[in-house]
């Protein structure tokens, strides 16, 4: 049995395998992960909106031992990961980290958020730094404004959206 604690190290091995097959193969897998994660999230996201997202990531914050702060208001949900346990485990690893490890998170989250009818803007901050930040907006206009501000700060590559 691979312990649940070590799933992310197995995930990292899958990502490296897929990356060798071609970058589009990683994106195809994110779509599959989104489909599966929808099982755990989509109904609540649709039913409870931004509060449903808060409730889901609050459970993740606890169960995955995340050092993160998050909140929501009438306009958006926002999460700031101070120390991501997932990338931290992949970096604390005798096997090599996948260079695009962080991309899986916006890869699946963005799809599920879109299915729920919301707009995600994700700031990876850096792919070797276990920190990130993302917002989910009710309106595309608000999301586009956030994206523009972040792209001006970090450039296109580290800012991911679902629109």
């Amino acid at each position, binding site marked *: *049995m*691979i*312990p*649940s*604690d*070590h*799933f*992310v*190290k*197995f*995930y990292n*091995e*899958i990502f*490296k*395998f897929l990356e060798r*097959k071609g970058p589009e193969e990683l994106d*195809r*897998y994110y779509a*599959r*992960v989104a489909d*599966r994660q929808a099982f*755990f999230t989509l109904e609540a996201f649709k039913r409870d909106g931004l509060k449903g997202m808060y409730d889901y990531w609050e459970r*993740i914050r*606890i*169960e*995955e*031992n995340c050092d993160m702060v998050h909140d929501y208001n009438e306009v958006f949900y926002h999460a700031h990961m101070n120390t991501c346990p997932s990338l931290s*485990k992949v970096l*604390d*690893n*005798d*096997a*090599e980290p996948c260079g695009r490890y962080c991309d899986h998170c916006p890869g699946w989250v963005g799809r599920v958020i879109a299915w729920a009818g919301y707009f995600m803007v994700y700031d990876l901050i850096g792919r070797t730094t276990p920190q990130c930040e993302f917002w989910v907006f009710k309106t595309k206009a608000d999301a586009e404004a956030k994206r523009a501000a972040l792209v001006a700060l970090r450039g296109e590559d580290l800012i991911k959206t679902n629109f």
Partner: protein
Amino acid sequence: MTESTDQVLRYASGGELHRDFHASILDGANYVRENYGEAALREVIFNTGTKVYRTLHEKLVAGDPSELIAWWRYYLDREGSDYTLAETADGAVLTVRDCAALKHLENRKISGGKGLCAATRLLNEAFCSRSPYEIVLEETGDRSCRQVLRRKA
């Protein structure tokens, strides 16, 4: 505490558990097999068993099963499996009466949990590759198994 659990594990995770990762492991393995074939899944799990768990693997290659035994004990305890683990003259016998991973999948109404047993067989093969050991896994029930670590004949 036995001698085996005194061994230092390379990764001794603590804190809370996110048990839904068992579903993610199952689906990741299924995805690789369905899209790239059994050999691809074997490759991914081989890399997991020999590179991620490099120290555990290298000790087995050197004839030392202590880290594997400690790893079994630590994570079966941590996940809450019902099991016994007996060290033998040439290895160990792990008897899992109620597997925590399979129990969680059942609670979540996720089918196909036996795919985790197939992945465990591949991981065991990877652990033991180039070593004097083998692990024979026998499924003894819906959520139970017996894994015998022994020196190859």
